């Protein structure tokens, strides 16, 4: 039996995993990174394994809260708590970004804890990403990536030739393209794979070396043949939002009768969107792909592009409704939710906004709201179908 999806689920549910241990045993170094604006291929080209940081397995925020406060995002607090408990001890380096006010302070607090509490690793880098997607911003981002490359070379002790960068870009393009195709398969009615399964797979792909990621994808593609995961009458939803690393939220929606046919979340589609243009010099191509993939609300000049992408996805995936989620105290997704609601009104699409903590925190309440929402959408669908029948009857 093809165990790709169950294996993905296990990988998604664990912090470290045997794949990383095997990589370390082969002499590979693991570099953690926050945010989809960090190009994984550069870390790979430096001979290291990129690992997307998650709060998975966190037991609380008791120690994280000695630095952060209750007004800070639970994702960041949980991650830092894990760090202070030594649960990221398998990392040889960490790359941070100025993704948001909460996340960028991880860089500051981690360094401080390094000085005062001996928190490792030693290699800590802040990759600064512009807040715009203009050509000037792109040039700036390229310069930032050159600095990043120099830092990686210093860390690894070896230069990163252009060819290595180009090959790494090709490799990660392959992962993105194939995951994109798998995601696109969800346009079918009914869907061949559940949204929760795809999210688990997306998470797993960021937690293992690239060759293992490709192997997992191959098995996942094979598993899709002849498969259905939903029903004809499922309410098809598009989920959008920020950090969502726990597929349990999608499973809860699926239990409520919804089918998550598309998503635009940090660890999911947004992470894998767009390919590196291999006609360009590799660093420039990587910079352009990374800066110009579907953006998140930290990009101030890009809402119209995001809105168009959302509308296109709604159409292509025949989604009946939009569910937007945000973590508490997230200004960026708070404002984005306000705008998405307006867009949903304009498009006459049912819209639900959820607010949550990264783990736990009122799941019962969320489930109730989702159930009620799904029922409303189902009834609405029924009315439209009936109306269409009358109109054509």
């Amino acid at each position, binding site marked *: 039996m093809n165990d790709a999806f169950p294996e993905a689920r296990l990988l998604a549910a664990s912090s470290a995993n045997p794949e990383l241990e095997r990589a370390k045993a082969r002499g590979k170094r693991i570099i953690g990174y926050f945010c989809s604006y960090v190009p994984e291929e550069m870390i790979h080209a430096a001979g290291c394994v990129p690992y997307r940081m998650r709060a998975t397995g966190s037991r609380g925020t008791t*120690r994280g809260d000695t630095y952060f406060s*209750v007004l800070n995002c639970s994702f960041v607090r949980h991650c830092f708590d894990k760090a202070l408990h030594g649960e990221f001890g398998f990392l040889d380096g960490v790359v941070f970004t100025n993704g948001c006010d909460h996340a960028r302070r991880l860089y500051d607090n981690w360094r401080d804890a390094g000085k005062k509490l001996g928190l490792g690793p030693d290699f800590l880098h802040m990759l600064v990403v512009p807040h715009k997607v203009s050509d000037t911003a792109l040039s700036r981002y390229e310069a930032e990536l050159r600095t990043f490359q120099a830092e990686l070379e210093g860390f690894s002790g070896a230069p990163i030739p252009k060819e290595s960068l180009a090959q790494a870009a090709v490799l990660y393009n392959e992962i993105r393209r194939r995951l994109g195709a798998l995601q696109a398969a969800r346009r079918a009615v009914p869907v061949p794979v559940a949204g929760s399964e795809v999210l688990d797979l997306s998470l797993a792909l960021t937690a293992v070396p690239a060759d293992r990621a490709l192997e997992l994808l191959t098995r996942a593609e094979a598993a899709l043949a002849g498969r259905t995961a939903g029903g004809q009458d499922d309410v098809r939803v598009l989920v959008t939002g920020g950090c969502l690393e726990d597929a349990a939220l999608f499973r809860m929606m699926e239990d409520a009768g919804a089918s998550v046919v598309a998503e635009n979340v940090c660890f999911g589609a947004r992470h894998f969107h767009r390919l590196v243009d291999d006609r360009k010099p590799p660093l420039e191509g990587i910079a352009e792909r990374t800066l110009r993939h579907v953006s998140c609300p930290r990009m101030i000049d890009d809402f119209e592009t995001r809105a168009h992408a959302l509308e296109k996805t709604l159409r292509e995936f025949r989604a009946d409704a939009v569910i937007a989620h945000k973590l508490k105290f997230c200004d960026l997704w708070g404002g984005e939710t306000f705008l998405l609601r307006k867009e949903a009104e304009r498009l006459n699409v049912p819209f639900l906004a959820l607010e949550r903590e990264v783990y736990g925190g*009122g799941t*019962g309440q969320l489930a109730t709201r989702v159930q009620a929402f799904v029922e409303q959408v189902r009834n609405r669908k029924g009315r439209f179908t009936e109306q269409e029948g009358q109109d054509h009857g």
Partner: protein
Amino acid sequence: MGNETRMISAGYDVGTRFVKVCVARGGEMAGGASEPVAGDLRGVCRKAFRRACGRAGVSPRHVRRVAATGFGAVHVNGAGACLPVSLCAARGAHALAPAVRTVVDAGGLFLTVTSLDETGQAVDSITNDPCAAASGKFLEMVAGALEVPFEEVSARVQDSASPYRISSTCAVFAESEVISRVNTGADPADILAGVVGSIAGRAATLLEKVQAGEPMVLVGGLARIDAFVRIFEGLTGRQAPPLSPYPGLVPAYGAALAAAGLTGRRWFFLRPHR
């Protein structure tokens, strides 16, 4: 009764759940009382005061100086001063156990950790952030919802095999989380253990922020909950015995001492708080 060393003073600790009053005579704790907060707060204060005087064997008229502390200190009629809880907890703890260097006050709504020097002076203190599910009141609420008498909470927590970890920092959302768990059939013991663990965890976080010294004691209402003490000690790896004999009265006792001026600092004969 004119001898200052025999001066009778009273301290009020007006918390969010209880009003505690302690009468001190010559620097010693002479009597105390606690009344639940309900309705007319000033009436509750008066009642607690009279009971404390009764237990101390003194007439209310003979109480020469009064100071108040706690969330509702401003509502105490006739208080010579309103003082911070951290200061009063420090004073009271130091008087009862001069070696103490850290006082953890776990009360109805607030957790306060105070570090003190060898003279009993509060050096640093920190209180939990707003919207924290880190309060005795929250525990009381959950126990009530589970129909577990508050005095049985410790015993029930002892029975827990798998404490439920509460992730919300906001009591409103934490309550919702707890209700969900109850509705899905979770064991009340596990839920109570989770709530106590959550409060103990918040206290442990505060402890680390203040870089608290040894030895440490617990005061306030939650200090009477054995389960809280046990879990807190487990989380911090430190001894945190409740300061006997009446941990709930320690801040009120400290306020009484401050009122009497037995600290030796003249300015503690304070200007009335406006």
